[in-house]
């Protein structure tokens, strides 16, 4: 009896057009759009390397030589410099072998052929070079003995500004969008949870009435329906993560198996969330569906799906929101898995998800356990 119900529940869920649209097609489309929108930035950020720059010395200036040395040496140089004449430099720029031409003479000047991240960085570096030159020239003029110390101090400042990796994971900030996307797929599982609740209550749907007339105990139809929806949802989560990781080739970081597990658990959380929403009140299924979808999207908004820094903003202004927002907990679990080498934070998020699943399911059962209704 249980397997009969489970089999048909999975079949019904996987054939549901809304389910296919929101849980399989939509994340694929949105993920592809994210990749198209952030892909360039993502790859550049992910594979950051020294910016190829042509340097044209229009006059000898030992201060620039020192600053340039600080920018081109070391393990993680900011610039990859090619000294050239102006003609050669223009040719390099034209052929794309250099992202900009740095003219070093009395002043530091920059020529670029377009606009983009590297050009912006070059502009910043040129401005910094100008500042160094002013500081060092001033130091030499006032106390030549301290010029060397000033040069060293400036070099150290440059070193101090270098990014120190805190993790072995992928630190790319744009990953958050993909984490939120996975969390959104999970929370959209609320739709199938909602179906479970309304289709098993006699006062919510004719289907529920028919099921309640049968000799199959309600606990069996309900449990088979919830488990069936969770299985279908987990399948969607696996498809989404696989698509993002292996088709879009986004390095989601961390232990991939654990990420799949966290995504699967998130899917179950989404289903139980919908089950709870569907269990409350006597609104029509369509109305509940609209409420569930709106709430889900709002939670996604709060977790930063639409506005990247929303979660950080809430962490500052109202940190409790992130602690109870299922979508934020889900995306945080993926983030923690990527960013922290120990699993303490990840485990905390997983426990929080398990608690929410238990609470949502218990409340849902509490509201749907009635066997007789006051009105239908």
């Amino acid at each position, binding site marked *: 009896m249980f397997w009969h119900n489970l089999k048909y529940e999975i*079949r019904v869920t996987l054939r549901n057009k809304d389910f296919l649209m929101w849980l399989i097609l939509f994340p694929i489309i949105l993920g592809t759009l994210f990749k198209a929108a952030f892909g360039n930035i993502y790859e550049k950020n992910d594979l950051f390397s020294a910016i190829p720059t042509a340097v044209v010395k229009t006059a000898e200036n030992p201060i620039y030589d020192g600053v340039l040395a600080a920018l081109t040496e070391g393990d993680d140089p900011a610039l990859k410099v090619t000294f050239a004449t102006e003609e050669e430099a223009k040719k390099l720029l034209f052929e794309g072998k250099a992202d900009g031409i740095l003219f070093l003479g009395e002043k530091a000047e920059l020529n670029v052929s377009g606009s983009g991240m590297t050009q912006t960085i070059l502009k910043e570096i040129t401005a910094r070079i100008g500042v160094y030159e002013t500081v060092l020239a001033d130091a030499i003029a006032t106390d030549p003995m301290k010029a060397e110390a000033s040069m060293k101090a400036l070099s150290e400042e440059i070193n101090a500004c270098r990014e120190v990796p805190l993790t072995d994971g992928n630190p790319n900030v744009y990953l958050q969008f993909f984490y939120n996307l996975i969390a959104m797929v999970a929370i959209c599982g609320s739709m199938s949870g909602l179906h479970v609740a309304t289709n098993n209550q006699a006062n919510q749907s004719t289907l529920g*009435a028919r099921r309640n007339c049968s000799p199959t105990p309600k606990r069996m139809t309900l449990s088979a329906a919830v488990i069936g929806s969770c299985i279908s949802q987990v399948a969607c989560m696996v498809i989404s993560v696989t698509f993002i990781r292996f088709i879009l080739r986004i390095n989601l970081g961390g232990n991939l198996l654990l990420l799949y597990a966290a995504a699967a658990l998130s899917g179950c959380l989404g289903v139980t969330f919908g089950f709870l929403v569907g269990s409350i009140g006597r609104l029509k299924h369509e109305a509940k569906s609209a409420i569930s979808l709106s709430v889900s999207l709002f939670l996604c908004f709060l977790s930063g799906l639409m506005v990247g820094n929303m979660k950080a903003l809430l962490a500052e202004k109202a940190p409790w929101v992130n602690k109870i927002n299922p979508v934020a907990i889900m995306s945080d679990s993926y983030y923690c898995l990527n960013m922290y080498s120990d699993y303490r934070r990840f485990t905390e998020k997983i426990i929080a998800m398990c608690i929410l699943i238990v609470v949502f399911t218990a409340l849902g059962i509490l509201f749907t356990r009635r066997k007789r209704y006051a*009105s239908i």
Partner: protein
Amino acid sequence: MKPTVVKIDNLVKRYGELVALDHFSLEIKEGEIFGLLGPNGSGKTTTINCLLALLSYDKGDIEVFGKPMEPTSYDIKREIGVIMQNVAVLDELTVRENIDYFCGLYIHDKAKRKEYVDEAIRFVGLEDFVNFRPNKLSGGLLRRLNIACGIAHKPKLIILDEPTVAVDPQSRNRILEGIQELNRQGATVIYTSHYMEEVEQICNRIAIMDHGRKIAEGTKEELKGMIRNTESVSIEILELPDEIREKIAALPHVYETDYDGAKLMVRCSGGRHNLIRILGVLQEAELGFGRVYSELPTLNDVFLEITGTALRDAKGE
């Protein structure tokens, strides 16, 4: 004497101030096709929902197959087939899958279930549509699928709550014939409707409900015997002076006349040759008239006379 299948005793159901069922009692014997007749809002569906233990009620007792009916009376529920007023099927499943799914809620054995599903498909004539999804079926076919889902497990008691609403005449006939066939196969049937002619066509015994009360119960003949009207004569006539109408009204057995300017309706209670006497008055007055009809009372007449109202629409049952 045949055993009682359903016994409803003194049932009271209130929705706040509204009394939906007012000390309603009913007894249905095995093998009957029992019609529950009443206008919209009379309490038919409420009765069915209480009987199925879906609705709570304020007072009264319900027994099915001699046992009290409770939400957990799974052994009783196993023997009941329900066809709801609204179609209750799963849009994502095909015709066969739908029937198999609902049958599976009652029948565990796979082989037996397959046999029952095939039989149900044949019974409702959906052999050519087994792989269709419900949204590809016409209204009539969808109703037939709804019925197949309710009867596939071969229940001993079948409850049909207005199964022919919005169904074309061909499908309606097929459904009614199907119900009679199920009854011939041994099922007891409870049939609710506000279509008098359907109830008259298939039911052995009928209860008429209004305002949550049972106002009459019996066979068709018994119900017709409860009313004064034994013959209704209608005559198309364009001119009818008042004195002639009074003459007709004074004839023996005539208890009511009604003239709307084009048609004279005369209702008679008992007696013979009422039509000849009425036409005699018209001929004597040398009045011309058109078509003449003489009709025996129908359930509709019974209903109108007993309830004093025409069928009405209400928001809910």
